[in-house]
């Protein structure tokens, strides 16, 4: 990523990013503009040693507003590579278990990551549609119960089956390397995905579906930069369903509100701001008759991050952001928050436990499945 002199000149007069950043609001010493200035104007190499490099959520709230088109998340990602080499490392959540599991997937192992699917539905070992399940089976084991990690792939498989689709799922699938990539370990990302590419190629699939926005953006945006054009179509499940469900002869039960309040949608950073997918999930929710849909004030491009990325730096700042989001949903009259990201669901559910909030937090797949006739 090259930042031109013109961009730098503009940047030094600006500050839109710092004003937009949720972390800057919570941590007064965190300023994306200052980090750019220190690196590019002052040639101050201590940026590689500063902890703020790890505090950024890479949520892109700043970069979608930047008038000089500076991609701050990408700036952070690249400097994390350097920081890692200097021994400046992030604080890992869950004792680093999830990073360890991702790294172990880069070994020659024979996984059993699809065992859950035997009871959940029908699937195939080759065919046109490959469902990339992501790391949810591992999340389900490692994270505390009740955060709903395992429900995402189960619901997607059931939905696809209802539409007459038996997707390919594979034990040979590996972690998509999203977190490694965003934690400054591009080598790990490459190693995992060289393998994933071969596994998908071997299945003969023409379309690959992702329920996780992270895997989706990795395949859609980062893989082509490294591996060239991919030999299959990459779709997020919400895009696929918005395209295919209306014609699939499936009807939905009217929503029973029964005093439970409105239904709102949380735009995941990866799916929304990064990939520009705002409408398909809303269209899908709108398929349910009598749905009392409400938007939160911060929605679409202005949506709020769920508080942590890449299983690191989960702090009081994350909790504050999450609780603020729950309050925002409640104030908008919502009793239910629907997300399209397993991690948004996990983080918001975790934050809600042991608080006075009683919002129902779910994902769009479980929600649609429940509403099907």
């Amino acid at each position, binding site marked *: 990523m090259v930042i031109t002199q013109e961009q730098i000149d503009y940047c030094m007069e600006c500050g839109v990013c710092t004003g937009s950043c949720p972390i800057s609001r919570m941590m007064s010493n965190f300023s994306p503009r200052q980090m750019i200035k220190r690196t590019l104007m002052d040639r101050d190499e201590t940026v590689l040693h500063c902890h703020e490099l790890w505090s950024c959520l890479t949520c892109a709230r700043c970069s979608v507003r930047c008038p000089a088109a500076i991609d701050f998340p990408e700036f952070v990602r690249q400097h994390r590579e350097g920081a890692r080499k200097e021994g400046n490392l992030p604080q890992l959540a869950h004792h680093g*278990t999830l990073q360890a*599991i991702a790294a*172990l*997937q*880069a*070994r*020659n*192992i*024979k*996984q*059993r*990551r699809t*065992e859950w699917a035997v009871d959940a539905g029908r699937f195939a070992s080759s065919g046109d549609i490959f469902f990339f399940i992501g790391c949810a*089976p*591992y999340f389900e*084991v*490692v994270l505390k119960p009740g955060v709903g990690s395992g429900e995402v792939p189960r619901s997607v498989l059931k939905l696809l089956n209802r539409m007459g689709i038996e997707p390919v799922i*594979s*034990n*040979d699938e*590996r972690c998509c390397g999203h977190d490694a990539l965003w934690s400054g370990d591009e080598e790990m990302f490459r*190693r*995992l995905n*060289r*393998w994933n590419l*071969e*596994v998908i*190629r*071997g299945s003969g699939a023409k379309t690959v579906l992702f329920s996780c926005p992270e895997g989706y953006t990795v395949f859609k945006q980062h893989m082509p930069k490294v591996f060239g054009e991919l030999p299959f179509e990459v779709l997020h499940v919400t895009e696929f369903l918005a395209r295919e469900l209306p014609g699939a002869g499936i009807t939905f039960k009217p929503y029973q509100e029964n005093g439970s309040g409105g239904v709102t949608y949380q735009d995941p950073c990866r799916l929304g701001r990064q990939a520009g997918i705002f409408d398909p999930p809303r269209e899908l929710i709108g398929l349910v008759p009598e749905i009392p849909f409400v938007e939160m004030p911060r929605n679409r491009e202005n949506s709020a991050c769920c508080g942590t990325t890449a299983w690191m730096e989960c702090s009081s700042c994350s909790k504050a952001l999450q609780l603020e989001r729950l309050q925002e949903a409640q104030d908008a009259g919502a009793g239910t928050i629907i997300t399209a990201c397993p991690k948004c669901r996990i983080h918001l559910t975790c934050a809600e436990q042991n608080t006075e909030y009683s919002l129902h937090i779910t994902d769009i797949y479980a929600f649609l499945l429940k509403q099907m006739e």
Partner: protein
Amino acid sequence: MVEETWKVLRLLGVDERYLRLKWVSASEGNVFAKEVRDFTELLRKLGRNPLAESGGNVLEPVDSATA
């Protein structure tokens, strides 16, 4: 914690018997010795931990036929 680790090992395709948890009282020296002897024997039979093996354990591009 141990139960979750067994489940993770299972997902990773590693024999769960590599990880064992037993409660033995300090007064039961013979029980402890037997347990360690049995476990050592089992580990010998199972061979080296596939995750810890050095060399050849890193993922290289696969032949799609074997994937």
